């Protein structure tokens, strides 16, 4: 179940829509490895991504892309004070294809695009439009983008059941469209349905050159999600019951961010800083800060180091598992989703880029104008914070299966090749 993964792709599509490639091929593979509590296994994600950009004459570019997520790991089937003992293995495979067309004016770009994503239990179709313009002087760029998702999630057919009676989907339930349409099956408990989820995302950015060596970007982001947003597999122990998690159908979220770059010609390096604030109607409020340094070494090596910290408050209906079990839910909603829990995440990492540029008439490898090899590594320190009074929680949060409980929770390794021709 990669519901958030799909949403994130939509976010990225909306966020990066103004970037349209010239003739280029970009292939990256990312390996994400996470550990969890109790030695029950963690999470492994392999994410290959291929993007090809081609000029269509002087005024248009075409971009096509493909990516996949191969996910294996363990997940807690029930969010309880001892979720570790309920952890079971799972695997999933998601495919996504994208297509974009952009028209370029003298100082402006207009683009349209779409993506289609598919996995066993989630379908996603997005359409997007974007435009950007350089103001006179070409020191200010204003960009707007909009994306709409037509998504669908597979779920157990819980139509007539109340929140505390709803059954969770299992890996054995058929999620084919046919099983939904043909209801004459013998085992009624295996019946599944598909829920709609519509997502509207818009973003506005202003990028401004401040001086010959510095620029800044301001961005505003808004999104409204309307539809089924629960993880259909996740159950939560609420009192004596273990129903499927239940979260609101509507969520509105907004964020504002400022990013700043400053180049230092004397050392051929640049500092990058950013801050971001976030708030949504579920009560999640967060802040993110990032600081990075890029450094050229010689003519063909670029190094980058970065540190990022993020902290957020929990959704108003999120509780530590002990309190769902002993106090029940606060209202009709309950969840064990760690994205809705209070967390403080720290990321430190580095990246090395080897750059080869064609000189005179000698193209790189006889074919490319520019070739870049990227190698990156990030370390993730995920801190699970208390959502409720820790002094009143004798069961603690050590076995909720939301993080590893160790200093290093996850790492990312990536390798990529970008070729311009």
């Amino acid at each position, binding site marked *: 179940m990669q519901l958030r993964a799909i949403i994130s792709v939509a*976010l990225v599509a909306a966020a990066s829509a103004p970037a349209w490639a010239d003739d280029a091929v970009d292939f990256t593979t990312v390996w994400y490895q996470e550990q969890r509590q109790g030695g029950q296994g963690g999470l492994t994600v392999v994410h290959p991504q291929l*993007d090809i950009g081609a000029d269509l004459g002087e005024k248009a570019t075409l971009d096509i892309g493909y990516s996949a997520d191969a996910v294996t790991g363990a997940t807690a089937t029930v969010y309880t004070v001892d979720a570790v003992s309920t952890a079971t293995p799972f695997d999933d495979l998601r495919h996504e294809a994208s297509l974009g067309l952009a028209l370029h004016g003298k100082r402006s770009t207009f683009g349209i695009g779409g993506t289609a994503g598919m996995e066993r239990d989630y379908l996603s179709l997005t359409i997007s439009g974007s435009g950007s313009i350089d103001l006179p*002087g*070409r020191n*200010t760029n204003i960009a707007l983008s909009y994306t709409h998702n037509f998504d669908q999630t597979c779920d157990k057919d819980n139509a007539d059941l109340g929140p505390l009676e709803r059954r969770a989907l299992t890996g054995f339930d058929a999620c084919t469209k046919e099983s939904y349409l043909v209801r004459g099956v013998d085992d009624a408990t295996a019946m599944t349905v598909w829920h709609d989820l519509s997502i509207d995302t818009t973003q506005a950015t202003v990028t401004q050159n401040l001086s010959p060596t510095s620029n800044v970007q301001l961005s505003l982001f808004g999104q409204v999600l309307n539809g089924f947003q629960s993880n259909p597999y996740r159950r939560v122990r609420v009192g004596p019951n273990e129903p499927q998690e239940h979260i609101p159908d509507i969520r509105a979220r907004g964020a504002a961010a400022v990013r700043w770059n400053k180049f230092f010609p004397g050392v051929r390096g640049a500092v990058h800083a950013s801050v*971001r604030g976030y708030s949504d109607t579920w009560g999640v409020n967060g802040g993110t800060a990032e600081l990075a340094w890029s450094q050229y070494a010689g003519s063909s090596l670029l190094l980058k180091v970065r540190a990022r910290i*993020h902290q957020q408050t929990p959704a108003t209906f999120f509780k530590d598992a002990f309190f769902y079990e002993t106090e029940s839910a606060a209202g009709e909603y309950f969840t064990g989703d760690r994205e809705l829990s209070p967390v403080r995440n720290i990321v430190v990492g580095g990246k090395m880029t080897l750059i080869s540029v064609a000189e005179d008439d000698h193209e790189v490898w006889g074919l490319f104008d520019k070739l870049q090899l990227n190698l990156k590594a990030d370390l993730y320190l995920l801190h699970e914070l208390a959502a409720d009074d820790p002094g009143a929680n004798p069961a603690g949060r050590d076995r909720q299966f939301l993080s590893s409980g160790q200093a290093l929770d996850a790492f990312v390794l990536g390798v*990529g090749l970008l070729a311009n021709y």
Partner: protein
Amino acid sequence: MALRFSSEMMLAVLCLALAACGRNAVRASEKEFLADQVMIFDDDGQEAAADEHISTNREGAAGGRGSTGGGCGCN
């Protein structure tokens, strides 16, 4: 009415400020360093996508990272 007038005034001031910055901040001949790839926000689109992909799966407070661009203004 006063509120509307105020909003329109603020919008006009913002547009004028942006236009002024756009014309005067940096001349075309001074954009060598702004054109460097390290000065382009999210110059590696796939890396930005992967980072957002991961953080969105770990954090509910996701989105609003910004967009690609900036630098030399030679869009």
